[in-house]
């Protein structure tokens, strides 16, 4: 793993530290990259070749604070996070490098029901306790990629992403969590005329370990080994260890039409398939207890159509959809002894007792009015989304399903103030449920309490109707530092989310404010 890490750091440094040019174009470079590359959000690592700004380095420091009880069941009531990021891009001959390094240090207060870090959001096999405590996750996220153009028609690409982190609390039972995700993404693209077809893949490994200690041993502490919909087993927390191991792989195909920054019409279409699994295994050595296996398959597709009737106007239409079908395998195990008298867990049955289907579709439109240099002076965006989720337990017949629709509107206006540019943004949106149902009538009485404390609040957090609004201000000022021209950025933003209907299981609101400061070279 150290080799992966050193290679990634090299790619990040190479792509970032060498890029000091074209400073005037780097005000709001992210929007320029998006508008200038119809495949900017492609899964294929060759897409960086088409970025209009190929030499830049970005160094930022950010802070975010959130407070409020309108959040998912395993969210924190109060959270704060510092983040330092270093990213960049550099073209050297036929090769374009890109990369980033992000360090995040958070404090998650009054959090419970989840003692994991990087497992899939769909994985039902969560190890948790029911006592609120403060988590301190610390993560490093590294990404390095390169696109190589060996001939006029061919592009080859490779990217690697390494996410590593740890988290802990100082309240019994005390979990200590260490996790890692490592992803490799190769890609290829062949172009002919104004058309290009691409193929990319991804393979990712997950490794995470959670160990629990109890300092005040006079009070017994217990862990919940969730199996979906709040169904759980309990284990005594002291010394309890769980390890997650998983693999994800996927393939995507792309079709790109006319990907040049000034094309009047351009289009990007991508479709892909993925498959993944994560195993939860508890204990050590021979005494291994299988916590469960989560597996999922799915597909996703996205379409972006870009219309530029003039050099000063850009219309982007997007449509995307995804579907994932997941299963939770329960293992029924019995303790017995081996020939040496050691206690072992003997698996007497394995069955996919939990099934879930998640679907999402999104329709978006974005309008940009550009300056002569390509800076978006005004930007308006509307996104309409719809999601559907259905989870059922085949043993007890428990089932929950819901559909939500959401709408987000945003507008950003940029003003020239002295030598700098001020970007002022407003956004507003809402989420409304279309339908929801939950049936827990078949659950055994022993789960009555957890249904009230966990299952129902978790479900209602997913379906709560809310509105939200926010504003942001970012000031970008070209400056020279040590002889290098750069853009200094200072930004603040804030937002508020409020529940619309009364719901005794869900909190009422949540506030977030943040700020960032940095330089783009």
């Amino acid at each position, binding site marked *: 793993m150290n080799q992966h890490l050193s290679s990634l750091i090299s790619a990040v440094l190479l792509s970032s530290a060498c890029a000091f040019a074209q400073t005037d174009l780097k005000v709001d470079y992210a929007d320029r990259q998006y508008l200038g590359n119809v495949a900017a959000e492609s899964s294929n690592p060759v897409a960086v070749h088409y970025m209009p700004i190929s030499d830049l380095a970005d160094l930022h420091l950010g802070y975010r604070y959130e407070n409020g009880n309108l959040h998912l069941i395993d969210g924190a009531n109060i959270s704060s996070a510092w983040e330092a990021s270093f990213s960049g891009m550099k073209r050297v001959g036929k090769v374009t490098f890109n990369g980033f390094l992000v360090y995040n240090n958070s404090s998650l207060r009054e959090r419970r029901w989840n003692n994991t870090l990087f497992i899939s959001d769909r994985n039902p096999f969560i190890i948790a306790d029911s006592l609120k405590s403060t988590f301190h996750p610390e993560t490093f996220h590294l990404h390095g990629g390169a696109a190589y153009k060996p001939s006029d028609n061919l592009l080859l690409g490779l990217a690697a992403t390494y996410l590593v982190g740890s988290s802990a609390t100082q309240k019994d039972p005390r979990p200590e969590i260490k996790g890692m995700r490592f992803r490799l993404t190769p890609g290829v693209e062949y172009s002919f005329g104004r058309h290009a077809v691409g193929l990319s893949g991804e393979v990712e490994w997950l490794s995470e370990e959670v160990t629990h200690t109890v300092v005040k041993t006079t009070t017994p502490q217990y862990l919940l080994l969730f199996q979906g919909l709040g169904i759980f087993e309990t284990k005594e927390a002291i010394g309890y260890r769980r390890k997650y191991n998983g693999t994800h792989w996927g393939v995507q195909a792309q079709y790109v039409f006319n990907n040049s920054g000034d094309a009047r019409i351009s289009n990007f279409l991508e479709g892909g398939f993925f498959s993944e699994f994560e195993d939860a295994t508890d204990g050590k050595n021979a005494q291994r207890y299988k916590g469960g296996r989560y597996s999922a398959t799915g597909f996703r597709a996205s379409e972006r159509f870009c219309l530029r009737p003039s050099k000063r106007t850009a219309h982007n239409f997007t449509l995307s959809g995804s579907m994932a079908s997941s299963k939770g395998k329960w293992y*029924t195990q019995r303790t017995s*002894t081996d020939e040496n*008298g050691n*206690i072992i867990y003997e698996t007497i049955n394995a069955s996919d*007792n939990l099934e879930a289907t998640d679907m999402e*579709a999104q*329709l978006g439109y974005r309008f940009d009015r550009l300056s002569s240099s390509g800076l978006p002076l005004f930007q308006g965006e509307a996104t309409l989304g719809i999601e559907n989720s*259905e989870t059922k337990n085949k043993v007890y017949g428990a089932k929950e399903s819901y*559909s939500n629709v959401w709408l987000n509107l945003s507008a950003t206006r940029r003003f020239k103030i002295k030598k700098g540019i001020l970007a002022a943004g407003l956004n507003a949106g809402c989420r409304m449920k279309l339908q929801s149902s939950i049936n827990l009538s*078949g659950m055994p009485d022993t789960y009555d309490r957890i249904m009230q404390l966990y299952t129902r609040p978790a479900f209602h957090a997913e379906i709560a109707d809310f509105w939200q609004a926010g504003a942001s201000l970012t000031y970008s000022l070209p400056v020279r530092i040590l002889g290098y021209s750069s853009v200094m950025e200072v930004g603040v933003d804030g937002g508020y989310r409020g529940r619309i209907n009364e719901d005794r299981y869900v909190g009422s609101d949540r506030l977030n404010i943040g700020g960032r400061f940095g330089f783009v070279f």
Partner: protein
Amino acid sequence: MRKFLYILPIVAMFLGFASCSSDDEVIRHTLTVNVQLPSELQTKASETQPASLYVTAFNTSTSQSSVAPVNGNSAALELIPGTYNITVSGELESYNINGVKTGVDVFSNKSVTIDLIATVPSTLVFKEVYFSGVNAYYFQDAFYEIYNNTDEVQYLDGVIMGIVDFGFAPSSSDKSLNSVWMADGKYIDGKYPLTSHVQCFPGSGQEYPIQPRTSIVVAANPMNHTARVLAEGDDPSPVDLTNADWQLYVDLTGFITDTKFEGVPNMTNIWKTWGREMMPATDGQPIILAKLPAGVDPVAYAADASSVAPVPGGTNNCFMIPVDCVLDAIDIVNADPADHVKRIEAKDDAGMTWVSGANGGSGSYTGKSLRRKVAGFTIDGKAILKDTNNSTNDFVTGGSTPTPGVIPTTVD
């Protein structure tokens, strides 16, 4: 508005697609339980259909029970996947009919055959046992109440009371494992292994009568435990044992010494290994009442080296008493269904019972006892305690507030 209308078909298609999932699939398996009456009762059964013979399947994960009547010689239950303890209960004339099979894995349709056992009700039975104690770690208030469940005078002379060894595997204290003393639900050498202390009522035959439908209370410490001075974290004991009929003086040498209460007769501590009181584990342990064959002196029997055997694979000794000598037994287990492992033979107790704590957890230090239910009353109003040879049915589920010396006046 017209543009918005274009979106509606997309939304409708999405929702339509989302609702196209297959019909709800719930996994259920059929367990067919075939019952086999003992040969000596098969003729009677052909003449008299056993009344209310039914099968109970207890899911060891969810603690849910499913019940089905026996029709002919079998019963069918639709069960969720899991591991079950199966019991069969009923009556035939004056016999209790019972059968048990534990750890039955039901992950597909299957059938099991259970051999039934016919027993007659016991003369002396445990009316109540209290062993869970209270916080913090106070268990000196334990008591046992023995009831004469017949209409004739019975005698306590020579009656032995003992705690059955868990039969842990070597280097283990895992109660979910089967006892190393047992195979196929029976003790390998035909003897119950007793541990901690074994106590015996004195007397040569008819010195200590117990009148019909009355009880005697045997206290670990015959005193008023409710008057205990409490420190922080202590809970008050629920029992006043001042009027106990007998005491269990544990004759230990060493720095731990039991208190001897004057004026209350002692049972005889005929065998001992460890324990500052004679009592089951606070979260549950099987106990028995037994009586050796006529003419066998319990003290002499205990002094005989052949009455003691080490735990298989271990070194700790147990006091061995033939299974045929048992008068009454309660298979007391921890409330956790994973620990519902039988350590009493089905002929002595076809079920299991336990004291429950919060959320169905361990009953340790809950201040609750196990009390036998009242099945009815005699013409003169005396209680007939329930004795179907199945403690799951015979005792108040999960335990209740202790009532030493008090005989209920209503049917449970």
